[in-house]
């Protein structure tokens, strides 16, 4: 039931010589310094970065939340740089799911309404909307917590609400920025198994940032960043 992209000739995502520069003059900082990356349908990628910069920026660019300073981002063969703001919004709405490091849930809003939000923008009728949202909460193991607000949930529970919100639309690509950063190891494994199942069962392409090799081991492919560049691209062979 995933949103199949029409053409299957080109890779799903392609970054060509992408630069992202913050600040000017002395304070100038290159977060991305010429990134070349190809992501195919069905990939499960762990992005690792020992230097601590670049990977989040890369995720934001991939999620169309941030615009690169230069370079090309092709999504299913379409140059994202040529799209209007509204077209970008529709791309995010229909094909991308994003799990933020800081959750970015609406506070004072129930878990259910948070998860419903992307479906409202998709224009789903109320009945189907809450059914799918409850289902997504079920998948992440929060069935009893639908009417709790983020303030009433633990960090791990908030993380899972954020995951439910990202997968409720069954996106083509799931972008996760340190999805296990706030969880203990057993919870982390649960989340990773969840992401693996999305990848294998729902055919969702997953790109995940992590700094833990244990978690990266769940991925089919590991990409290492250093100083804003991809320095290693290993195939795990789905070893998990």
């Amino acid at each position, binding site marked *: 039931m995933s949103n199949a992209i029409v053409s299957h000739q080109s890779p799903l995502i392609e970054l060509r010589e992408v630069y992202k520069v913050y600040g000017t003059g002395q304070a100038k900082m290159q977060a991305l310094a010429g990134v070349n990356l190809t992501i195919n349908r069905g990939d499960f990628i762990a992005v690792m970065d020992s230097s601590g910069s670049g990977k989040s920026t890369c995720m934001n660019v991939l999620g169309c939340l*941030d615009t690169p300073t230069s370079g090309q981002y092709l999504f299913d063969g379409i140059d994202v740089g040529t799209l209007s703001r*509204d077209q970008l919004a529709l791309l995010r709405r*229909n094909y991308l799911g994003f799990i933020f490091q800081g959750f970015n849930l609406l506070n004072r809003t129930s878990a259910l309404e948070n998860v419903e939000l*992307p479906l409202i923008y998709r224009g789903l009728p109320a009945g189907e909307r809450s059914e799918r949202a409850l289902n997504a909460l079920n998948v992440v193991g929060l069935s009893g917590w639908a009417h709790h607000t983020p303030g009433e949930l633990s960090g791990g529970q908030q993380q899972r609400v954020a995951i439910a919100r990202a997968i409720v639309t069954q996106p083509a690509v799931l972008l996760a920025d340190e999805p296990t950063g706030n969880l203990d190891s057993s919870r982390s494994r649960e989340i990773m198994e969840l992401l693996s199942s999305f990848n294998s069962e729902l055919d969702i392409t997953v790109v995940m940032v992590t700094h833990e090799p244990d978690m990266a081991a769940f991925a089919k492919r590991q990409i290492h960043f250093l100083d804003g560049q991809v320095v290693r691209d290993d195939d795990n062979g789905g070893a998990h």
Partner: protein
Amino acid sequence: MLWNAVLLAMREIRRNLMRSFLTVLGIVIGVAAVIIMVTIGGGATLQVTEQVASLGSNLLLVSPGQRMGMGQRSSASAFRLADAEAIAREINNINAVAPSSSQGATVVYGNENWSTSIMGSTNQFFVAGNWIFESGRAFTQSELRAGKAICVIGESVRKELFGSQNPLGQKIRLEKFSCEIIGLLNAKGQSTMGTDQDDLVVIPLRTFQRRLSGNQDIKLIQISVNDGQSTQKVKQAIGELLRERRHIATNEEDDFTVMDMKEISNMLSGITKVLTTLLGAVAAVSLLVGGIGIMNIMLVSVTERTREIGIRLAIGAMEREVLLQFLVEAVMLSSLGGIIGIILALIGSVTLANLMGVPFVFNLIIVAISFLFSAAVGVIFGYFPARKAAQLDPIEALRHE
């Protein structure tokens, strides 16, 4: 898309109850203050105008002496009946000349007594003062000439002495003599100055002079000018006539006063208009303060709202969807505040108008202006910060601090 925006706006209002409440409150206070003040002010103006009109705006009051400032008058000899007759004879464009004299006295009927003002005058008094007979009749010429012991009473005197009884044909005692009631005047209510115009007993001038005052003095001549004629010209003609009759040299001041009710009415309605404007200005300040309150609430929440907008954009909301949601939210809150404000103002001004004895005048323009102003404040300060945020890249909006 609109329905989605309404749904999201309602969720947003429910999520931020306090903020929504304060926004609505600011609008309610602003709208209600302006409407109440202007309505009461307008009612007071109308009341003054009506009272002056009931007195007859074409009325000239001629009295001996000059006003010397607060309540003081220079002494001067009173008029004689001949002065009034001369005015009636020689001045054009007037329809009634009522010479009168009055004094306070206690009137007694049975066990009831009431202290009132006794007015000695002619039938012209009823014409000049626009008096209407509730029942009974005015004096006849022979009664006036003979100085008969008869009287016409005002509504307040009737109420005090007779209650529910019919006063016509009854005899009341005025100081040393008793007289028969032949007429009852229609109620006029309070005068502009706050005195009760209906608290009087009118008797023929001759009766007054013979039985009460014991002299021929005329203390006041009321002259009503024909409709459409300039009171100013008549006033001047009367002044010249009286100067001549009272032998005042050209270099001397008048020793009498001609008051023009139109001038007084203009002056009074001028004052109430100034007061209304003043009240309106005070109210406008409260509207402004309410507006600034709304502005503060909106601006304080910009950080939170910017992050919220970032989340919505990141999830796939288009800029115009976010803006429509904020616009709907602002319009809903502003309209709610405006409607509550108008309802409160109407209740408040009807109550206040009753308490103050002022007529209630509904001023649709003020209602519209104050509603639109506060709605505009709500919408502008709710919408424009949101617009700024919605134009950012999602990641910038999310990082906003």
